[in-house]
């Protein structure tokens, strides 16, 4: 099942797991600033990147996401002090293991985007969409189960 086809081709479906205090607010700023950016993301808001279980990323791919963005507060800025430090280590492992098992690492984007970085969020999203567009649809993960 492809994403909505446009004149230029495949539109990736990106799930973005973002922390409430920094990236979500930054994304909101991008919106209120009327910055133009790709519309391919669905944002899932969490209190902190430290709450992001690697299983969320795996689940997103299982459910048909073509790409995933994970974004939170810069080091030393975490609202809960150290959540992003824990997350940073977890993401490092997750990323390499996903790649090792054959998930193209261009499909997963990690970023630190602060509440004031609306423009950076736009750039992160646009960059992710282009990288995932290059990779093509990721039907293969969901389709691994086979149907009737």
């Amino acid at each position, binding site marked *: 099942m492809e994403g909505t086809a446009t004149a230029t081709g495949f539109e990736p479906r990106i799930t973005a797991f973002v922390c409430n205090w920094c990236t979500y607010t930054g994304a909101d700023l991008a919106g209120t600033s009327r910055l133009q950016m790709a519309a391919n993301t669905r944002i899932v808001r969490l209190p902190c990147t430290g709450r992001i279980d690697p299983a969320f990323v795996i689940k997103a791919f299982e459910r048909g996401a073509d790409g995933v963005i994970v974004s939170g507060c810069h080091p030393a800025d975490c609202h809960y002090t150290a959540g992003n430090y824990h997350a940073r280590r977890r993401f490092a492992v997750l990323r390499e293991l996903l790649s090792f098992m054959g998930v193209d690492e261009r499909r997963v984007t990690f970023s630190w985007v602060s509440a004031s970085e609306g423009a950076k969020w736009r750039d992160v999203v646009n960059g992710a969409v282009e990288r995932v567009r290059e990779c093509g649809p990721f039907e293969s993960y969901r389709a691994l189960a086979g149907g*009737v």
Partner: protein
Amino acid sequence: MMNATTISSSDLSGLAADLLAARVRVAGPARASDGTVEYRHAGAPAELVLDSGVPRRSLKEFFLPPTEPLFAWRTGAGGRVELLEAPLPADPAVVIGARPCDAAGIEALDKVMGWDYRDEPWFARREATTIVSLACAGFDRSCMCTSVGLAPDTTKGSDLLLVPIGGGAFRAEVVTAKGARLVAAYPARFRPASGEAEAEAFRKAAREKVAASAPPAADPLRPWLDAHFDHPLWREASLRCHGCGACAAVCPTCHCFDIVDEPETVGTGVRRRNWDTCQTPRFTIHASGHNPKNDQPARIRQRVLHKIVIYPKKFGEMLCTGCGRCSRACPGGMDLPEVLARIAALAGGAQ
């Protein structure tokens, strides 16, 4: 209707080629990527490996796959749910080179699969599949087919039994009408029967080899087992068990399954049945939280009793076919022949 023919190994290979050309699936012992022989679908006759003992897993996965979709659902307008049933499998298939213990296991399972309701996918695969077994020379000290009323050359579950007669040839004994139909469909591959004496010598030697190291017969142990449900032997036997379920995965007759509903997208999904095992801690857990088989001694006991006491009581035949895989696969060193020998010693003493 026991009539026989001869088939040379090159003709057997040719038979596989004929079948593949006729779009019949051919399965048999073949090498996996790690070099170990297991039952696989063969793309070419050369893939079949007929001289390497007991394949890693059993034949059951060709009749009861590890995962099988039952139906798909879609929630439509007004909350109406549409079901799309999985089509019954119907691809014709021939297994070439089945071990007799594995073929016997498939026939044993027919009883439970046709018991309280008819398991349609199981029987659809059964009807579509012809099993050509290769008589076994006896593999290793974990073999115990002779202890459960079978033998390395048993015809139970087979449609055709091939017995080596030297020179790479086999005496092919027709066991069922389905086997006769296979011979009749490919007459160029089968020659007049020969090698009766060689076949008999092979079978006798194989039976003696297995019987020499096999534990005491399991059937006479049933009354003792019935009367000693709480015996401490299960506590001792279970100490090294990890509850890992490797035994159930490789067993020709373990058939417990789990049913799961897996959502695919919003409003759609697939119901599947998956292999399960009574050896894992949560197999018998109730919604209340109570678990009647709450420790490994109870679970080990359940597995052994199911094979040699409960199934015979219910269906009149042993569920264990003595293939020895559980003992080979166990990472903790469980050994079914050892357990049976222990029970026999206890039962003998009690008399």
